[in-house]
């Protein structure tokens, strides 16, 4: 116990991130079920009025994004894999790394306090003023949770950027890095530059609410829209903080299970990944298409938002291209990864009308938007995390999960999410607004809502089975053979199973031909 709490080993820290974020995922998932049950029939179903329900909405959104997806991808996977992938014995600042995971755990505890304090926060994960300032809910808990997670992320970002820049194995050039390492670098650059803006915006909320300042109060010279701009200035790029590492994991898994290098490596890295980072910071106002902002700014951001299709298109081509002439085996990590190819397609393409200001003027704040971002951000990224957990499971535990149950879990999840969210596109186009406790004005949507609730319970069953396969595998699983997938990446080829302290028995050095994708006749030069 003690060696886990006070550990500075990046692998254990990674696993601590995994456990914490899966805990957040579970609780936030239960909130989702409560929300779905409440909506399954017209009128109050579970609770009398929206006061409880609004807290579920807050917790579901805030915890899924801030405490599950971001720490799951940039905390767990990055921590566990990056030093192993670049041949480093640990990260640049191991003790700071330990401090970040502590901050993360404190934040989880703080977030969970939502359920015991009187007047819990009910400000959604966006915390728009003036509501967040006027509400009786405890906005402070929201703000402090953001602070802790933000600070933890900034420390992580500095740590990993320094690690990758200075601690790569001798001989390892930039074009020999795993694509996942690149996506994480991109994500951390966004985190480092943008999080301080979010942190200061929510801090000003805190001052407005508890110290009587008027930063966002128009009566006294504040500006309501400025908060929204500052919030999305970080929170839109945060989508790429989630999406990029998710794509990174998927590419790793596709490469390993198709036994092919990542398609068009350099274009993927310098065009796809860094293009997304650059463009992704200039499109935040698409969240403000109906905000009442000046007209030409809203139409201007339509152009930048549409341009995001270029780097994301390159990434998609790379995902599909990696399969070309491959040798594909459908183990659990691979079925999750291939399923995301379809999820990204669905989620990404439904983003096209949402990039267009004039179409969004109707679609904004409806179930259409909600279904869209659940596909592209929620489900795709969650499936990527799951693909990652299964993929590195033999490495982390030295044991094997149960293939059959894992596949059953996958199919329940996959069918469940589509049953939950497909129908919601439809009623969204017909006008069903998001964040509603009830829908008396649209009684005809009741059956669709019910269908979606059924889907949510199928997902719940799938998730339960999935998590059980991990627990079962970690404790009772068969011993895994070394490098069971036949990967060429350094974490599989140069480590012990599971890797011990210091990671590598002998510090690895690589030749100029080496690459994590040396499949077939490929070398680093032929990528």
């Amino acid at each position, binding site marked *: 116990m003690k060696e886990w709490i006070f550990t500075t080993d990046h692998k254990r820290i990674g696993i601590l991130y995994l456990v914490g974020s899966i805990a957040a995922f579970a609780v936030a998932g239960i909130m989702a079920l409560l929300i779905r049950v409440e909506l399954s029939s017209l009128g109050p179903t579970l609770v009398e009025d929206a006061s409880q329900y609004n807290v579920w909405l807050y917790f579901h959104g805030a915890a899924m994004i801030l405490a599950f997806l971001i720490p799951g991808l940039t905390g767990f996977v990055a921590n566990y894999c990056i030093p192993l992938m670049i041949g480093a014995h640990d990260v640049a600042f191991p003790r700071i790394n330990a401090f970040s995971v502590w901050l993360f755990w404190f934040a989880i505890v703080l977030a969970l306090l939502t359920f015991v304090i009187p007047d819990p926060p009910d400000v959604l994960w966006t915390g728009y003023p003036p509501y967040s300032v006027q509400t009786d809910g405890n906005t402070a808990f929201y703000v402090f949770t953001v602070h802790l997670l933000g600070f933890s992320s900034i420390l992580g970002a500095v740590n990993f950027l320094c690690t990758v820049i200075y601690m790569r194995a001798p001989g390892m*050039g930039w074009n020999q890095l795993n694509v996942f390492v690149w996506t994480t670098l991109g994500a951390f650059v966004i985190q480092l530059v943008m999080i301080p803006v979010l942190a200061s915006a929510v801090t000003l909320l805190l001052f407005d609410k508890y110290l009587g300042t008027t930063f966002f109060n128009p009566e006294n*010279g504040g500006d309501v829209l400025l908060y929204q701009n500052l919030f999305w200035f970080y929170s839109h790029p945060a989508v790429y903080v989630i999406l990029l590492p998710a794509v990174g994991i998927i590419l790793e898994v596709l490469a390993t299970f198709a036994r092919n290098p990542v398609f068009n490596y350099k274009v993927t890295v310098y065009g796809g990944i860094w293009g997304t980072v650059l463009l992704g910071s200039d499109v935040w106002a698409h969240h403000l298409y109906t905000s009442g902002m000046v007209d030409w700014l809203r139409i201007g951001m339509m152009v930048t938002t549409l341009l995001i299709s270029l780097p994301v298109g390159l990434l998609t081509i790379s995902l599909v291209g990696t399969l070309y002439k491959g040798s594909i085996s459908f183990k659990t990590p691979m079925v999750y990864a291939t399923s995301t190819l379809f999820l990204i397609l669905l989620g990404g393409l439904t983003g096209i009308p949402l990039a267009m200001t004039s179409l969004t003027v109707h679609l904004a704040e409806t179930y259409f938007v909600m279904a869209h971002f659940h596909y592209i951000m929620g489900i795709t990224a969650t499936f990527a995390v799951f693909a990652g957990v299964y993929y590195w499971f033999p490495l982390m535990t030295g044991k094997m999960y149960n293939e059959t149950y894992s596949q059953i879990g996958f199919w329940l999840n996959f069918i469940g999410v589509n049953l939950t969210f497909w129908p919601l596109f439809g009623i969204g186009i017909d006008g069903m607004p998001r964040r509603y406790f009830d829908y008396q004005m649209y009684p005809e949507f009741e059956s669709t809502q019910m269908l979606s609730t059924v889907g949510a319970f199928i997902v719940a069953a799938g998730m339960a089975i999935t998590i059980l396969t991990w627990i079962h595998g970690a404790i009772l699983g068969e011993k895994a053979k070394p490098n069971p997938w036949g990967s060429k990446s350094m974490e599989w080829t140069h480590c012990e199973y599971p890797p011990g302290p210091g990671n590598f028995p002998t510090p690895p050095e690589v030749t100029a031909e080496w690459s994590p994708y040396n499949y077939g006749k490929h070398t680093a030069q032929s990528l």
Partner: protein
Amino acid sequence: MIRWLLIIALLLLSGVDEANCTSLPSDSQIDPELLRVDDKEYLGVKVTEGSVFIDSQGKEFTWKDLGDKPVILVLSYYTCDGFCPAFNTELRSVLERVQNLSRVKIGDDFAVLTLSFDGNDDPESAGMFREKLALPDELEKDWKVAVFKERDRIKSFTNKIGYKFFWSPPDRMFFHPNAFYFITPERRVSRILHNSLTDASDMELAILDAKFSRMKPTEIVNFAVSLCYSYNYKEGKYGLNYPLFIAFGSLFGGITAFAVAANVSRKKAEKLKISRGKGEKL
């Protein structure tokens, strides 16, 4: 680190502001608050409906003839020998200062319309009033002093924009609000400034506000300027939009944090003699 930067910034900022409240010259016995236009009630109101005006040279014109730019509207009456001339003269001197700041130019960026709410005024009294204003050449061309063509339209016009006035027989004068209306190119009220001591930068910002929706890409500086300030309804003037500066400060803080850490880490890496490999070239 970021939080501390913030706290320091806030402490610095907390020293500013407070001063400058609205003050009207005290030549009126009426509570000036009664004559204040309730601006929030009337922002966004459309002013065009059926208004034809006659300027001091007897020429008819409408809102359309004022061009596709914001208009500063001042309601006055021309037989007034106290406040109205003073108020218009005040506007003249503020606008002279605005001209000197040279961010917005009369004629290019806005026009001025002084309009009589007194049915007894005619182009002649308008002309005399305008003469007394002694407009300098630069303001002369785009500042119209005018009367309504149809007097019975006056009341509905002033009601629509919330301008309340009444004749006081004992004083033999009108009591009326002292307000500058800023009218957008779409001819809607975008701002009402009450302060008779309006300073040039408030005037300028209100003009920028009125043309905000029409700004061209070349006016990027004006756009940025108007983003940096926001309107304070309680004090009736513009103030710095602090959160914007705090956000920029934090953005800078994040980048600095990385620069510092990268430096520390480089030294550390060198000290540990971790070889950095030869594949450094991109």
